[in-house]
Structure formats: structure tokens, C-alpha cells
């Protein structure tokens, strides 16, 4: 089994004007997905990220503080899962709840170094 990371990219919830009802429904979908992965025993871990960004760029180490309103696409969180290959993770990612909000799931394999 290999390990993969599913990285979630899209608009920040705060900028989408979702209603309390929609937020609750959406959360229910995240619960369901989380449960499904746990029951299948594929879930390794994951975190959600706050929308505050501090960037340090280039050799001058230029520092900028950004918020979600200044960057259209933001990494909102990630899950790490165990799977056979990309196709298997793609299958898992079908249940990502935010495609309808224009969200993206980027699947990356975690590199294993020979000892």
C-alpha cells in the first residue's frame, strides 16, 4: 500500500455567502465522507487550514500577509489515505463534497525514500 495526499483547493467558505442551512448540509457530507474512509480503513490523517496566509518569497525573504479574499484559490485542507494507486484514490475522492462550489482535489503520492 502506498500513501497519498488529497489536497483541497477552492474558495474559502466565508467568501461564498453560504447560509447556515447550506453549511450544515455541507458539513454532513464531510462527516459522511470521513466516516466512509474510516470504515474502509484507508484514512491516515488530515487537517483543515484557517484562511490566513503568510508568504515568504524569494531571496529577499519578502513577507506578505494575505487573506482568502486576496487569493481566489486557497488550500483549505488535506487528507492522507492509504491506497493501491492513483485510480483507487480517485475513487475515494469522488465523495469530496465541494465540487459543486468549484472545488478541486489534487492527489499526490507521498514519496518513500529507500533506506
Amino acid at each position: 500500500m502506498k500513501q497519498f495526499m488529497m489536497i483541497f483547493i477552492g474558495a474559502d467558505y466565508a467568501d461564498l455567502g453560504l447560509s447556515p442551512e447550506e453549511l450544515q448540509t455541507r458539513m454532513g457530507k464531510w462527516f459522511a465522507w470521513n466516516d466512509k474512509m474510516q470504515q474502509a480503513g484507508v484514512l491516515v490523517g488530515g487537517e483543515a487550514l484557517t484562511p490566513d496566509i503568510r508568504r515568504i518569497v524569494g531571496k529577499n525573504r519578502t513577507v506578505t500577509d494575505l487573506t482568502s479574499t486576496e487569493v481566489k484559490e486557497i488550500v483549505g485542507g488535506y487528507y492522507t489515505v492509504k491506497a493501491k494507486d492513483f485510480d483507487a484514490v480517485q475513487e475515494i475522492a469522488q465523495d469530496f463534497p465541494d465540487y459543486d462550489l468549484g472545488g478541486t482535489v489534487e492527489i499526490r503520492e507521498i514519496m518513500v525514500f529507500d533506506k
Partner: protein
Amino acid sequence: MENQLIDHLFRYHSGKMVSVLTRIFGLSNLEIVEDAVQDTFIKASISWRKQVPENPEAWLTQAAKNRILDIFRKLKTEKNYLPNFYQGANTIAINELFLESEIEDAQLRMIFTACHPKLNAKDRIAFALKTVSGFSSKEIASALLTKEETVKKRLIRARKAILKADLQFKIPQGKSLKKRLESVLEVLYLIFNEGFHSNKKEQLIHKELCGEAMRLCKILLKNTHTRTSESYALFALMCFHAARLESKTNTQNQILDLEHQDRSLWHYPLMELGNSMMYKAVENNEFSCYHYEAAIASEHLKAKTFNATNWDKILYWYECLNSLQPMANHLLTMAVICIQKKDLQKADTYLSKLNANDFEQRKYLFYGTKSDFYAAKKDLKKAIAHINLAIETVNNQLEKEHLVKKKIKLNQK
């Protein structure tokens, strides 16, 4: 893992918290309050993904309390009037505002604000759905079959009117209470009807409107000052109508009239509840329109089959209703009942008092009834002429299909 949250928890909680925080910060800071409350839900929806708190409601309330300091900081720079709750005693007072009974009190204040006569009649509904019920502009637009932009405009206009009139966040007392309560009941009645009479594809939001109107009406019934026979009668009426909600359309979402509804689908517990509310409503002898409408609705529910309907009694209740509140619609309904009873002479007296222009957007109802009248008189030519007029003037697609079916039947006669 137990992930099931109470249905609509967020939406209900939104209405509660906006009301409580408005009680603390005043109506002039409503927008800041609404943003702050919205923020707690966004936080919850993300941070709960991994672990739902043991008591989600308490979590949300705590989050709202935490927002108080944030709002305070935000407002301090703007030098608005603010309660000085850095003093210990005031903090206790604020904590008490989050007690269940006080939350209901705050919601009641918000309902009275939303239904204030200083607000434009149409703005009241939108504003109530937003602040008391926690709907978004988009949801309100879809529920009221209007554009989101229109809803936003109404909300802005309502907020402006509140500021301009410097409305106090209070439940009116003494003499003014009666008048203000009338306005509240009217708004709840309209919200319910929007839900009940709409036949749009997305049924869900409309059922929610009915549920919401009932929930708010229940808040009125919990308070001794607003628990009047009129409020009881309105709640009874809602129960009776809601009992039939499931049977109003068939599986293809076509409208079914009372004659063709599957009466076994009628919801018995709601009928029971309506009955017990009705007993409370008639404890004194002050009868309102809601009393008569509830009496009519309950008369329909009593009949085991359509043919067993007691039309005489229903006609009597309509007479009472129409003398209290004369309306073209009532007269038309009375004509329909008389056609039903084959009392065409009486039907004619009602119909002769009416003309199509009394019905504005709903002329087709008038023409449809006229068509039924002539069909009953075996005057097919006039019946067909009127059903054609009805089909020409109807806007709603479902209603149109219903009329076209009727026409086909007429042509087969």
C-alpha cells in the same frame, strides 16, 4: 461515530443568536451581529469535520458569546453606544441573556421588529425569514419565487427603515400590543401560505416555510402576553392545513384538489393538535378570521370522503368569514360550494357580485368557476368559452395543465 446533528440546527441557532446579540448590541448594529453569527457557523462547519463536539448547541452558544468581545472591539473604534460589560455585574447579566427563556424573549422581540408597521409589508416577510429564521437571501428568493436581488433590496430597505424610525428592540406593551400582534400574525400567516400554496418543483423549501411559520407561532404561544385566542386560532389553522400537505400533489407533482386527495395520507397527529389548539382559541368569544378559516379547514378534515363533506356548515363559516373580512375570494369560494351542492341559483347570486378584475393575477380562478357553473347548468358552449379564458390567463404551469384536462373533459361531454 455519531455524527447526526439535529435537523436545521444551524439555521435555528442562527435566528436565536442574532436575536440575543441584537438585544445586547441594539438594532443599529444588526449587520455586524449577523456577520459575526455567520462566522461561527463557518468555523463550526470546518472544525467539526474531524470531531463533532459533545454538545453542538452549547458549542455554538459559547462561540456566539465569544464573539461578543470581538464585536465589542470592532464597535469601540466606531464609538457607538455600547453596554459597559467589562464590569463584572454586566457580564452576569449578559450570561443570563443566553438562558433558554431569555433566548425566546429575544426571538419574540425580533419577530415584533420584523413585523413592525414602519416596515414595508413585503419587506417584513423577507426580513423575518432572514433574521428570525436564519434563511439566506438565496433561500428566501427561492421560497418566495422572486429574484435574489429583490430580496437583498428588501432587506436593505427594512434595515434602513428600522434605523430611520429608531425602532426599539422590544415587545410592545399595553394598548399597542394588540395592533402589533395583529401585524405579526398576518406575517406568519403569509409565510405559511407562501409555503402551502406554492407548487414549485423544489418542494422542500416550501415545506420549510410552513414549518417555520408554525415554529414562530409556537414562540408566540409560549409567552403570556402574545398567547391570545387569535394566536391559538392561527396555529390551529396551520395545523389543519399542514395535515394535508403530503396529499396536495401526486407523485408527478401535479396538484390534486380536495376531491382527489388521498385522505389516508392526512396527518392525524397534526389534526389532533389543531383540535386542541382550537379548544383554547374559543375559550372567549372573540372570533377572528383565523377562527373561521380554521373552522373551515377542520370541516374538510372531518369528512371521511369528499362526498361526506358538510357543505352547509362550510358555507356558513364562509358567510361569517366574509362578513368579518369581505373579499372577492370568499364570495368565489361560496359560489364553488353552491355549485358543488347543485344550488345553482345561490351560486349565481354570488357570481353576479363578482367580475374578473376583482382577481387581478388570478383571473383564471374566476373564469374556471364560471366554467364549472355553466357546465353544471349544462350550457356547454359557455362552459368551454370560460375554460378557454381561464387557460389564457393562467400563469402557473401546473394550474394550466389542470385546466386543460378539465377542458378535454368538457369537450367529451
